[in-house]
């Protein structure tokens, strides 16, 4: 063929492929259109086929021409209303459409295809309708017609009268109308009703039901019940509305799609149609998808697949944009070339920034051209489901969501077959037959939902059905009977493991292997295909309710910004989206910032304790550190990061109490990357942090796929390989529990219930006496040598960072035994009344969350807030502020002066049911100079307000309280005309999003988490508008 003809041919192929997939959806719409048939729909199809015929003729594609010609004839008659688009006719057209598609796909062999059967079919559509309906013996049979509930209504109706209406595309209804109630009393009359009826329907049979009526000599009846058997093109809703009869009395008993009389059984007694006895069946599978973009048609089913040109449709705007960017890049490059000679650093910076930016934009735009909407794959499924449902005698509604989600072209092409298999599976194996469904109390029409959406950085496609679910037990049985495993092994399997057996090759639990799906080659091939795309597939199911198959696909070929980190000799990439921040801890600070809590290492970060893991541990890679002089790098075998001893091998695990004994020797700083994903937030310790880089994500090789810590791999600029870390995977591997959002109280371990827990630092003064300090009060823990402490006027002072820090020795203020003097000394530094103060804590034991009840009575004395029992030890909790107050009362006086506003003290109403917290908060706030009135619960607080003895400036309230909780209190305050100006701060340990939302809904002005002192005070000040800063 000449070059021109080649071009013509490929243009024809391309255009026809698109047109044919459009036709298919139009034809499906035609079938379900009923009386509101859009004439434009038919015209469109007609025109398409017509032009296809013309071009085919011109090029010499004879067979295509012939088939198109016959189809065109049929369409023409439909267009002029001479032929009704009954299901049979539409079926014939769809079959032709399929064949045309096949021929277009295999254009070179199209002329040798035999389409005689299809042509004959199309021809018979025309002649079949035109010929007067010849009555057969069947037609004259009398049939009984029941209502959906089985009541016999019409006896011995001529079958032909009914079937002819159905073949004409009408629905058949039984209407129960009461002439008095439904007609006269609505202002109409019987004659008018009839006129209306005949406009929209045909009468098959009718009568007045005299059963309940009286006789002539009795008073006239209140209603006349008329039963009508009618045929109409309207549906239930439309018919009922047009007649003015409520839908409950309009019963659909036969439609063209579900014709109970097609199985032309001669015995009239068979009034019940096969699948349902007169059930109201909306059988047509309606695909609720929005207009699909329909870019690429499905693959040809011809036996000799021809390599078609691979093309993509691109929006012209994107192309213009690309041209622009290319132009910009050229300009910038020219600038750069010129600048080669004049090396002025500043200028180069600007131009290279420009080149950088344009290149990025160009990259994005080009990637966009490869992205296609997933709808192009989804849009073939309505047809698939329709055909399947017909074949199997089931009823199904297909819902398609997310057609506009975009995927790379290669994935779109590859995902079609697996999806088809899964959808067919759902309909075939998942959905039950309508009668089984009804018996189970379900809607006889099953639902299959095909959904595409973004989540977790991946594209998710789910296929779910509300069918029978998958039986784990059955699968186990099957596995044993197929010899895939022994019976013992099978019983050991968990349900989920059993469900996953469906992915095993050679597995099919269908009773008969239908040719529709499942010759045992199905699911494992699906899975392999998806794995090859770098995706995952899982199945979830619930017996009786249905199943969902979830496919997750990476945005392969996506370019991902990431941070490169190094551990040992390897480089790893951390996805930018997961990175919160990067911290470098100087070696001096390591000891105090990194602690052990419950056998895990944690990092102290801005008042928060965050779990950390060593990447080397998580991945099993040797970590390096350089020795002090940097001379050699050797494997880091330290057990604790905080252990700064160099070079030795330690066999034993240093006991916790000896945290104090660590020595700071090396000058290694620690690099910690704080990452976050799916609720886990933690730090990853790496040897070093390199530059951020944009990388191309490649899927891992098969042998590495199972590793949950890794999400992929990439090649770096220098040619080496960096593995991409899966932040969620690492968290689960290291068994980091998902912490509650409420981490400000300093707890690394979450408490699931909402008992209020406190984070306490536990230490011993004298070895046998344990004390605790609320961790939230602690600013720092210092280790100082004895010579840094002076004794001035009977008081210990620490020379600390150029200031003198007063030190408290516990035994001087409360009843405690004096400890053995130690050197060095641990000092807990905290702030009180805006100044810093220290407490000597001889031996640190632990930091932990304690949610035991605080006993505020038993061991009470000044300086002790309360006591708790932990592991059979009674531990007294020290009130730091109280001690500070005892030591330095003048500080607090000064503070009070500062807090005066508008000539009077700021008065705060505090509602808190725990006496422990109440006294703590009172002390904290009083030390800031506020006047506090404390109340045990919301009701008391409210009554206090009502008494109006004090004019409060602010309310601070807990949420969980008896009698009246904080939310109710807030609402009362905010809706009361006298008090609604009062600002309310909620202070609570409940800090989930929903709690915060309900707080705000109640009218809370600020929401603070217990017990972040600094934040609470800041919030109070901010609200009051106090400009005096904390000293």
């Amino acid at each position, binding site marked *: 063929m000449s070059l021109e003809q080649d071009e013509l041919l490929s243009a024809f192929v391309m255009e026809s492929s698109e047109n044919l997939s459009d036709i298919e959806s139009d034809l499906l719409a035609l079938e379900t259109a009923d009386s509101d048939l859009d004439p434009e729909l038919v015209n469109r199809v007609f025109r398409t086929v017509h032009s296809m015929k013309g071009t085919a003729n011109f090029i010499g594609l004879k067979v295509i021409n012939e088939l198109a010609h016959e189809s065109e004839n049929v369409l023409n008659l439909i267009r002029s209303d001479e032929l009704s688009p009954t299901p049979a006719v539409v079926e014939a057209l769809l079959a032709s459409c399929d064949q045309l598609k096949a021929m277009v796909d295999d254009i070179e062999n199209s002329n040798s295809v035999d389409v005689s059967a299809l042509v004959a079919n199309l021809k018979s559509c025309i002649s079949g309708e035109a010929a007067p309906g010849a009555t057969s013996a069947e037609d004259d049979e009398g049939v009984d017609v029941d209502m959906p509930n089985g009541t016999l209504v019409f006896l011995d109706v001529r079958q032909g009268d009914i079937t002819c209406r159905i073949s004409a595309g009408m629905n058949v209804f039984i209407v129960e109308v009461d002439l008095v109630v439904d007609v*006269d009393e609505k202002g109409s009359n019987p*004659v008018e009703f009839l006129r209306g009826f005949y406009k929209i329907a045909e009468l098959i049979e009718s009568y007045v039901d*005299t059963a309940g009526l009286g006789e*002539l000599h009795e008073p006239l009846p209140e209603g006349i019940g008329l039963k009508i058997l009618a045929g109409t093109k309207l549906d239930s809703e439309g018919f009922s509305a047009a007649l003015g009869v409520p839908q409950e009395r309009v019963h659909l008993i036969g439609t063209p799609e579900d014709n109970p009389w097609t199985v032309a059984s001669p015995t009239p007694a068979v009034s019940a149609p096969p699948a349902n006895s007169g059930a109201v069946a909306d059988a047509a599978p309606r695909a609720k998808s929005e207009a699909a973009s329909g870019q690429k048609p499905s693959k040809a089913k011809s036996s000799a697949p021809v390599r078609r040109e691979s093309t993509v449709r691109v929006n012209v705007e994107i192309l213009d944009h690309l041209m622009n960017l290319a132009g910009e890049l050229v300009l910038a490059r020219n600038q750069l070339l010129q600048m080669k000679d004049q090396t002025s650093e500043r200028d180069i910076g600007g131009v290279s920034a420009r080149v950088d930016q344009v290149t990025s934009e160009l990259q994005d735009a080009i990637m966009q051209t490869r992205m296609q909407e997933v709808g192009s794959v989804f849009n073939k499924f309505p047809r698939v489901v329709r055909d399947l449902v017909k074949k199997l005698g089931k009823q199904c509604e297909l819902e398609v969501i997310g057609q506009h989600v975009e995927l790379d072209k290669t994935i779109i092409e590859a995902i079609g077959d697996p999806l088809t298999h899964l959808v067919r599976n759902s309909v075939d194996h998942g959905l039950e037959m309508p009668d089984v469904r009804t018996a189970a109390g379900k809607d006889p029409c099953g639902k299959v939902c095909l959904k595409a959406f973004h989540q977790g950085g991946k594209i998710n496609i789910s296929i779910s059905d509300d069918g029978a679910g998958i039986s784990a037990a059955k699968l186990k049985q099957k596995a044993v009977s197929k010899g895939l495993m022994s019976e013992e092994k099978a019983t050991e399997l968990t349900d989920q493991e059993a469900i996953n057996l469906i992915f095993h090759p050679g597995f099919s639990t269908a009773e008969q292997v239908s040719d529709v799906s499942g010759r045992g080659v199905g699911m494992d091939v699906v899975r392999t295909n998806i794995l090859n795309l770098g995706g995952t597939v899982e199945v979830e199911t619930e017996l009786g309710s249905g199943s969902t198959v979830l496919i997750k696909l990476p945005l392969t070929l996506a370019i991902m910004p990431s941070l490169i980190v190094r551990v040992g000799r390897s480089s790893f990439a951390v996805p930018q989206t997961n990175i919160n921040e990067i911290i470098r801890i100087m070696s001096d600070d390591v000891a105090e910032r990194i602690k052990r809590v419950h056998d895990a290492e944690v990092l102290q970060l801005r008042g928060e304790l965050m779990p950390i893991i060593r990447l080397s541990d998580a991945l099993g890679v040797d970590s390096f550190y350089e020795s002090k002089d940097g001379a050699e790098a050797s494997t880091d075998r330290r057990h604790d990061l905080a252990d700064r001893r160099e070079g030795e091998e330690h066999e034993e695990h240093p006991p916790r109490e000896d945290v104090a004994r660590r020595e700071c020797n090396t000058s290694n700083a620690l690099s910690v990357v704080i990452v976050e994903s799916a609720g886990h937030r933690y730090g990853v310790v790496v040897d070093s942090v390199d530059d951020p880089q944009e990388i191309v994500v490649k899927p891992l090789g098969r042998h590495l796929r199972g590793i949950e810590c890794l999400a992929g791999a990439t090649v770096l600029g220098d040619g080496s390989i960096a593995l991409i870390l899966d932040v969620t995977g690492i968290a689960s591997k290291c068994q980091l529990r998902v912490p509650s959002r409420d981490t400000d109280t300093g707890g690394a371990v979450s408490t699931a219930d909402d008992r209020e827990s406190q984070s306490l630092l536990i230490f011993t003064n004298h070895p046998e006496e344990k004390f605790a300090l609320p961790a939230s009060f602690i600013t720092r823990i210092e280790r100082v040598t004895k010579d840094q402490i002076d004794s001035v006027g009977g008081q210990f002072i620490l020379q600390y960072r150029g200031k003198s820090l007063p030190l408290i020795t516990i035994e001087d203020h409360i009843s405690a035994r004096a400890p053995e003097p130690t050197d060095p000394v641990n000092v807990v530094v905290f702030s009180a009344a805006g100044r810093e103060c220290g407490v000597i804590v001889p031996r640190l034991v632990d930091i932990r969350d304690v949610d035991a009840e605080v006993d505020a009575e038993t061991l009470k004395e000044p300086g002790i807030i309360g006591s708790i029992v932990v592991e059979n030890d009674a531990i007294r909790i020290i009130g730091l502020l109280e001690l500070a107050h005892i030591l330095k009362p003048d500080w607090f006086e000064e503070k009070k002066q500062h807090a005066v506003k508008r000539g009077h003290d700021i008065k705060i109403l505090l509602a808190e049911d725990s006496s422990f917290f109440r006294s703590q908060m009172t002390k904290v706030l009083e030390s800031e100079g506020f006047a506090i009135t404390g109340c045990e619960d919301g009701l008391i607080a409210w009554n206090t307000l009502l008494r109006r003895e004090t004019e409060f400036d602010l309310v601070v309230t807990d949420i969980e309280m008896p009698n009246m909780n904080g939310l109710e209190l807030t609402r009362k305050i905010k809706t009361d005309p006298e008090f609604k100006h009062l600002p309310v701060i909620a202070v609570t340990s409940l800090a989930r999003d929903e709690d915060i939302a309900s707080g705000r809904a109640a009218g809370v002005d600020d929401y603070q988490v217990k017990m972040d002192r600094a934040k609470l005070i800041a919030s109070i000040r901010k609200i009051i508008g106090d400009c005096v800063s904390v000293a």
Partner: protein
Amino acid sequence: MNQETTASKECIVRPEGPITAARCEEFRQELQDKVDEGFVEIAVNLEAVDFIDSRGLSVFVVCHKTLSKKKKGKIRVFNASDDLKKLFQIMSLDGQFVVE
């Protein structure tokens, strides 16, 4: 259906004007009288009737019921306008049997 009427058993009634809820009591009485007189078949001449509402129709219906109980009698109509004819057809009172 063939109509077998014996002069004594069938009578003819010719109401005039619309048979509506307001006026149907009169009509009912008229029919009742005929039944009491022993007639088994009643033919109603509707040439002077232009409109029947549902209440009016109910008279025909109960009359039919009464008559058909006694010796298979019935009520029929003739000279009805097209509209009324259709109405009676749909009520199956133009000669066909009703399913009880």
